[in-house]
Each structure stands twice: as C-alpha cells, then as structure tokens.
C-alpha cells in the first residue's frame, strides 16, 4: 500500500497512498490520547533527526513520534551557516550513514538538498522540509486535520493564503489537496505568487475577499514580514489590511469554515490573534496534535519497507 523507500515529497504519492497514511495516522491519533502512548513498531530502530535549519516544533514532533513508536531517536542540529554546503552535506550524510541509522529525518534550507542526501544513504529518508520545495508531512497532517473536521477531504473548496512563492507548505498542500480532488484556491499579492502558478491547477485570487467566498477551509501561511516588508508588500500593516485573516473577512467563507495555520503564527500580520485562539473555528492546535500522529504513521510505513528490503 505504500511502495516507497523514502518520503521526499507529496508529488510521487498516489491518492490511495495518501489516504492509507491518513487512516494509519488516525489510529495513532487515538493511541496518543491514551495514558500509555507507546507502540513498539520501531523497537531497535535508530532514527536521526538531522536539521540544517532551526526548528522547534517540527523536530519535537518527529522526536516524539519516533519515541512513541519505540525508536532510539537522536537529534542533530547543524546550522547551515557553519556548513560549507554541497560537499559537506554529502560528507555529513556519508558519515551518518556509516552509523547505520534506519530512519533519517532531514530538514534543509535548499530545495533539493534532501533528494540529494537520499541518494547517498542506505536508510529511509524523510523530508522534513527542503527550501521552497516540499514539506510532505505538513501537507499530510493538514489533510488529516481537514478530514477530521469536515468528515472528508474531498470536494472541498480550500483557500491557501499568503506567501505562496516562498512556501514549501503551500507547494505540498497544493499537490496533496489536488490529488485528493479538492478545489484549491491561492490568495496572495502578485509579488508572493510563484511564476507559472497558473499551471498548478489552482484558482488564483489577488483579492482576498473574492477568494474567501464560500471556502470550506482557509489555510493561512506564515509571512516572513522581516524579510518581505518593503520588498514584496509595502508594510506589515498594509499586508494585514489586505491579506490578514479577520473575523469580518472569514464571514465571507462558508458558515462553518475551518481556519488553519502551520505555525509559528505572526499574530496581527497574517491572522487576527483572537481568531487564531477561537477553538470553534481554528484547527491550529489540532494540526499540531495530528502532526505527531501523522509522523508516527509515516515512520511506521517507511520502517515496514525497510523490513521488506
């Protein structure tokens, strides 16, 4: 049901494989609510979390997921600034490979770096985000969250709003939600839309009000305001005025529309603080919860293929 050695992106997955991951993640979500949260699927396995880009939540989520499955988990933070890129990346991979890990979870600031690393090691590689390319577990946990909230993740109208151009979360989500037969909209100023977006199978809106109309789900993206203010939009306050999600704008979406955000949030930049905390509308906490369950499912599936290999 899951015929891949690595999870490098959503692109190579079939809709059936995605649904299979979500089903297994659902089981782990139930397990995570129990007092004894341990499953022994990965007992004896070694999982290394290799992060070349700083991350708190994703690394914690992967660490917990591995531990709950019984794996020995090691975290490695390698800041890109101390690296000489290219060669050192491969050197690091080869060195770690010699320690015989079973699962390697990798985040890197350059698109394609995780693909490159996967070619150099014998273990299963899990992409925890590479540059602006893909962040597959985020898209999977988002799909699971939507399925739990809406009862399905199919034939829904879903808006992704914010920095589409620089976001790997947006790319993975567009791929994943399209594969599951949803109607995907992107909402952003033209400066934050990647070139060729018209060929991604999405509806494009530069007017947020128009884009939100009738949406079942509104996914907000983090805006790197310190880098983009003045370059991609005039100011943080103008961005918030045009593209920040407020209760008033949300009223244009479907009456029960769900609000999502991959975190960490910039309150008052892309989303109104009160709205973010509104448990009825916002699924942001549930996304974090589903993150651990989804990562458990993916680690489990990749480990099963290790056995088969």
């Amino acid at each position, binding site marked *: 049901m899951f015929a891949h050695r690595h999870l490098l992106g959503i692109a190579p997955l079939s809709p059936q494989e995605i649904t299979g991951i979500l089903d297994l993640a659902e089981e782990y979500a139930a397990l995570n609510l129990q007092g004894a949260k341990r499953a022994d699927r990965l007992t004896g396995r070694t999982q290394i979390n290799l992060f070349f880009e700083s991350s708190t939540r994703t690394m914690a989520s992967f660490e917990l997921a591995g531990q709950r499955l019984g794996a020995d988990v090691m975290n490695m933070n390698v800041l890109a600034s101390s690296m000489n890129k290219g060669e050192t990346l491969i050197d690091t991979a080869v060195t770690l490979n010699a320690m015989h890990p079973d699962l390697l979870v990798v985040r890197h600031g350059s*698109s*394609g770096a995780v*693909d*490159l690393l996967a070619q150099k090691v014998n273990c299963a590689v899990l992409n925890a985000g*590479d*540059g*602006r*390319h*893909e962040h597959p577990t985020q898209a999977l946990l988002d799909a699971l969250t939507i399925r739990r909230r809406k009862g399905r993740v199919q034939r829904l109208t879903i808006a992704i709003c914010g920095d589409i*151009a620089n976001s*790997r979360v947006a*790319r993975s989500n567009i791929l994943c939600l399209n594969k599951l037969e949803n109607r995907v909209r992107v909402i952003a100023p033209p400066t934050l839309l*990647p*070139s*060729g*977006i018209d*060929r*991604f199978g999405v509806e494009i809106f530069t007017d947020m009000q128009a884009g939100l109309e009738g949406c079942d789900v509104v996914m907000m993206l983090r805006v790197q305001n310190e880098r983009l203010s003045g370059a991609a939009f005039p100011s943080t306050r103008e961005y918030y005025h045009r593209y920040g999600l407020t209760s008033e704008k949300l009223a244009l979406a479907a009456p029960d529309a769900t609000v999502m955000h991959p975190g960490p949030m910039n309150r008052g930049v892309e989303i109104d603080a009160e709205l973010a905390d509104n448990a009825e509308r916002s699924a942001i906490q549930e996304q974090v919860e589903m993150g651990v369950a989804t990562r458990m499912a993916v680690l489990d599936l990749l480990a099963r293929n290790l056995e088969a290999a």
Partner: protein
Amino acid sequence: MSLHLLNARLIDPATGYDGPGALRIEGGEIAEVLRGPSPTVPGIDCENKVLAPGLVDIRVFVGEPGAEYRESFRTAGASAAAGGVTSFVAQPDTTPCLDDPALVQFALARAVQSAPVNVHVMGALTKGLKGREMAEQSFLLDAGALALTDGDHVVENAKLLRACMAYASGLGALISHAVQEPSLSHGTCATSGEMASRLGLPAAPAIAERMALERDLALVEATGCSYHAAQISTEAALPPLHRARDRGLDVTAAVSIHHLTLNEFDIADYRTFFKMTPPLRSEEDRLAMVEAAASGAVDIICSSHNPAG
C-alpha cells in the same frame, strides 16, 4: 609522405561545400581536396564522419591560474582537441583575473607549454572584474588579449560601461559582455516559470537577458564600439539584435551549445550538473535559438565551457 583521408563528409566553410570527399595530405599540409566519391587508394577510411577545419570556441573558462584543480590549460586543451576544437579563447575569470598585461602574458605562456591546441585569451574589461574601474585596455591588447570582457560578470554601472566602450572604440577593440540584468539574476539558478516554481528554485525571469542587452546596445549606439553579446539564450533578445544591426552597429552575438540542445526540464530532479549561466530556458526559447543559429541571426556557437561547479 602522402596520406589520404577517404570517404569523409567534407565540410568546407570557405567554399560552402558540404558533401562526400577526401583529402590528400603532403608533409602535414592539405595538398588536394577531392570532392565526390573517394579514390581507391590506401588511406584512413573516415566512414562518412565530418572532416572540417578545426573548430574555434570563443568562450571557455579555464581555472588557470588559481583553480587548476578544476581545469588547467592542459586538461582544457586535451578536451578541446578531443572535440575537434583547435582554437579556443579563455575568459579572464581566473585568480588572479587577467586584468594586468603580465598576467595575460603569463596565461598565454602557460597555454603554449601545456595545451595541444591554439589558445587565446580575453583581457579584463574592469580591474578585478569588479565593475568599478577600467582595466588597462591598450596594455592588455598589446600583451596579446584578443578582446576585453568581464567574463561571467556584468558591469552594472552604466556610466563605467559607457566609458569602457568609448575608450575601446578609440582603440578599435572589441568588447564582449555577459547580458543578464544583475538585480534580477543575482543568486538565482533557474529561469522563472512553472518548472522552477515546482522545484522551489530561486529563479530569474527570462527578460533579465533582454533588459541587459537593450542597455548595452543603447551604449554601443552612443559610443560606436565593437560589441559582442557573450551569450544570448532567449527569443526576446533577438529583436534588439536585429534592430542594432539594421542601424549599422558592429554587433555580434553567441549562443552556447547547451542552450541549443537542452532546456529547463533538464534540471528536473535537481540535476545540478545542468546548472548553467545563463540558466537553461524554456523549449520555446531553445527552438528560437536553434532557428537563430541556422538563419545567422546569432553569429557564433560557443561551448561556454565552465567547470566552476
């Protein structure tokens, strides 16, 4: 001592002949060109392969001096000879760069010692290829530089470039210049579009080339200098070239073999060995370049050989 090269496809640009033929060589010189069916005499059977004058490659980056581990005159010369290239022009992008007459002489002397083909060099257009001060044009030419160029670097400052061109026009010197608008292309490795966006690669729009070329041609018109666009790769660069020629400006342009044979899809799966400057273009642009090379709209095909990594 006579040698016959038989059953060849003879290509002779001087007479425009392209057809079957043979050559008789006496004492290292061509004694007779035999068109049509080859005579039955002892000799080397060319099996209908192309027999032509040695190719000239006007844009080659060699790492000597300073980066011989990448490419030296010896290795570049051997590669050139193996490909039928009997003369090439090395670019001044070395360490130190060829911005001093003594360095031009040194490079030429090294090349004579170690390369089995004819090697020429271009001298730096600006000191240190930094685009801040004019290099010693007439001294560089006297030392043996064929033309002046900043190689892969673009002179951003229009005032300086105008001065370089005006001064060169007084010397009758040729200026070769890379055409990429730096503020758009800096830090990028692909051409903007669906492909680069899906891969999450930093990309520059194809118009970066046309913008730089239009600026250069306006300065050529103002100064009357002889100008060579070191490499063009997009359809949008062709109309400005035609206009410049229609006005009688002394302008030529080259296209690299890569931009005639490869397109942006070749970088898929992060095949970094297809990373080029300028980046590979769309299939439409590739076809336009093939057409331009065939029609003569582009004057020269070069290798733009650059093992810089």
